[in-house]
C-alpha cells in the first residue's frame, strides 16, 4: 500500500468533534432514532486513512439510507429501524477458519482498537457522502479466527428478522433475504476494509447497519453489508444479493469506476450530499476506485475491469 502517493490521506490532525458536527445535530440525530448500539462507545483513534474532505452532516447520514430490510424509500430506515434489537448480538464465523464459532459482539470488540476512519462513500445510484466511521479493520477479526490456507473469499450475511424488519415481512419481496455480500480474501484483508461499529463517535445508528457493518470505501455502497450476523470463509466466489437480483447490472466486484456505466445510469459523475451550492451544486467527477486507486488498484492488476465490474 502506497500511502505516500495519496496526498488526501495525510495524517489527520486531532479535530474536536464540534468542528464538524454541532451538538444540536447530534442530539436531533441520535435522540429518537437510535436505541442501543454495539455497547459502550469506545474512544476512537484517528487514522491516517481518513480523508480531509468535509464530512456530511449527521442528519443526512442518518436520514438518507438504502437499507431495504426497513423499506425501499430512503427515509424508511430512519423511520423503521428503531425497533431493531442490537444487543445482545452474535456473529457466526464459519467455513474455512481455524476457530469457527458463534461470537458475541462484545467479545469480538474486546481488545480491538476502534479507529475513526473518515471515508468517502459512493452509492451506485450516483450520489456520495463523506462519513466519519468508527470501527476496526476486518483483517484484525479475520486474523483472529485464522483463515485456512485454502480460503479465497469471505461471505457475509445480514440478519433476517421480519418482526423487527418490516421490509422483510409481507408478501412482496424486494430482495431474497438474507442480504448477502462477499469479498475476495485479499480485498477483505486490505487495511482500508473496515468493520464499522459507529459513526461520528457514537454507536452506529440502526439505520446505518447497527451494530456491525462492512465498509469498503472503493466499492459502491451496497457492498457495505449491514447488521452482519454471519461471516464465512470459502474457496468459491460468494453469491451477492444485487448480483442475484440483476446480474447484468451489478457484478461481484462493484468497484467504483467512472468508466463503466451502470446500464441504466452513468457513473461518470456524482452528487455530493449536502454540497455547498444547495440546489445548484454541480455534480462532481467520480474517481476510479472512489479516489482510493493508489491503495487498491494493485489488487486488480491484469483484470479487465469492464468484464469484472
Amino acid at each position: 500500500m502506497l500511502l505516500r502517493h495519496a496526498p488526501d490521506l495525510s495524517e489527520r490532525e486531532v479535530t474536536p468533534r464540534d468542528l464538524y458536527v454541532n451538538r444540536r445535530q447530534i442530539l436531533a440525530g441520535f435522540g429518537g432514532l437510535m436505541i442501543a448500539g454495539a455497547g459502550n462507545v469506545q474512544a476512537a483513534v484517528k487514522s491516517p486513512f481518513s480523508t480531509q474532505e468535509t464530512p456530511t452532516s449527521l442528519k443526512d447520514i442518518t436520514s438518507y439510507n438504502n437499507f431495504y430490510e426497513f423499506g425501499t424509500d430512503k427515509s424508511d430506515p430512519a423511520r423503521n429501524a428503531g425497533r431493531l434489537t442490537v444487543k445482545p448480538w452474535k456473529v457466526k464465523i464459519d467455513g474455512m477458519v481455524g476457530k469457527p464459532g458463534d461470537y458475541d459482539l462484545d467479545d469480538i470488540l474486546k481488545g480491538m482498537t476502534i479507529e475513526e476512519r473518515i471515508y468517502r462513500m459512493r452509492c451506485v445510484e450516483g450520489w456520495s457522502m463523506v462519513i466519519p466511521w468508527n470501527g476496526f479493520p476486518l483483517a484484525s477479526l479475520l486474523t483472529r479466527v485464522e483463515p485456512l490456507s485454502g480460503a479465497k473469499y469471505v461471505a457475509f450475511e445480514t440478519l433476517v428478522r421480519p418482526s423487527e424488519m418490516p421490509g422483510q415481512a409481507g408478501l412482496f419481496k424486494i430482495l431474497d433475504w438474507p442480504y448477502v455480500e462477499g469479498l475476495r480474501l485479499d480485498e477483505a484483508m486490505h487495511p482500508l476494509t473496515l468493520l464499522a461499529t459507529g459513526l461520528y463517535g457514537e454507536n452506529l445508528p440502526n439505520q446505518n447497519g447497527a451494530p456491525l457493518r462492512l465498509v469498503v470505501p472503493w466499492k459502491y455502497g451496497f457492498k457495505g453489508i449491514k447488521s452482519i450476523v454471519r461471516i464465512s470463509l470459502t474457496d468459491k466466489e460468494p453469491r451477492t444479493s444485487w448480483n442475484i437480483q440483476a446480474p447484468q447490472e451489478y457484478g461481484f466486484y462493484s468497484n467504483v469506476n467512472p468508466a463503466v456505466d451502470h446500464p441504466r445510469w452513468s457513473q461518470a459523475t456524482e452528487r455530493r450530499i449536502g454540497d455547498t451550492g444547495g440546489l445548484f451544486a454541480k455534480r462532481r467527477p467520480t474517481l476510479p476506485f472512489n479516489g482510493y486507486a493508489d491503495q487498491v488498484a494493485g489488487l486488480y492488476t491484469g483484470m479487465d475491469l469492464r468484464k469484472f465490474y
Partner: protein
Amino acid sequence: MAIANLRFQPRLATWPVYLAGLLPALWYVYQIFHGDLGADPVKTLEHAMGEWALRFLILGLAITPLRREFGISLLKYRRAVGLTAFLYVVLHLLVYLLLDQGLDWAAIWADIIKRPYITIGMAGFLLLLPLAGTSFNAAIRWIGGRNWNRLHKLVYPAVLAGAVHYVLLVKSWPLEPLVYLGIVLMLLGWRVWRRA
C-alpha cells in the same frame, strides 16, 4: 355508445381546479425556501414533479371512464387537468436539465440515447408537446374538432411512456411504480374494452 345517466356534474368553475393543480408546485417552492427537502433536494424535486405529472395524467385519463361508467362528468375540467399534468412534466424536465445535470448537454444527450428510461420519458414529453400546443380554443377551431380528437389520442402512449419510465428507473421491483403502471393499463384497457 351508452352513457350512464349523468348523476353528478359539479357547477364549480374551472379556475379553482387550475389553482388546486398549482398547490403541489407551490408547496415545493415553499419547501425550497423554508422547509426541508431532505438530504438530496434535487432528487426530491425531480421525483416529486415526476410523480405529480403522472398523477395528473392519470386523472385526465380517468375522466371519460368516470362519466361513462359512473355518470360523473368532470369533462369541463379535463383541459385544466391535462395542462396541469403538462406543467409538472415541464417542471420535472427542467429539474433534470438544470439542477440534476447542470445543463451538461453531453451528459444529457448520452442519457437520452443510452438510458432506456430517459429515452422513454423523453418520448412521453415529446408526445405531450403537440397536445399542450393545441389546448386553446383557437387551435381547436383551427385544426378542427375531429383532427383535434385524433391528435389527442397521443395522450395514451404518452401516459404509458411515463408509467413505464417509472418502472424502468427503480432498482428491483418496488410496489409503487407497478401500482401506477397497473392503473394506467386499466384505464387504457377500459378503452380497448369499450370499443370491442
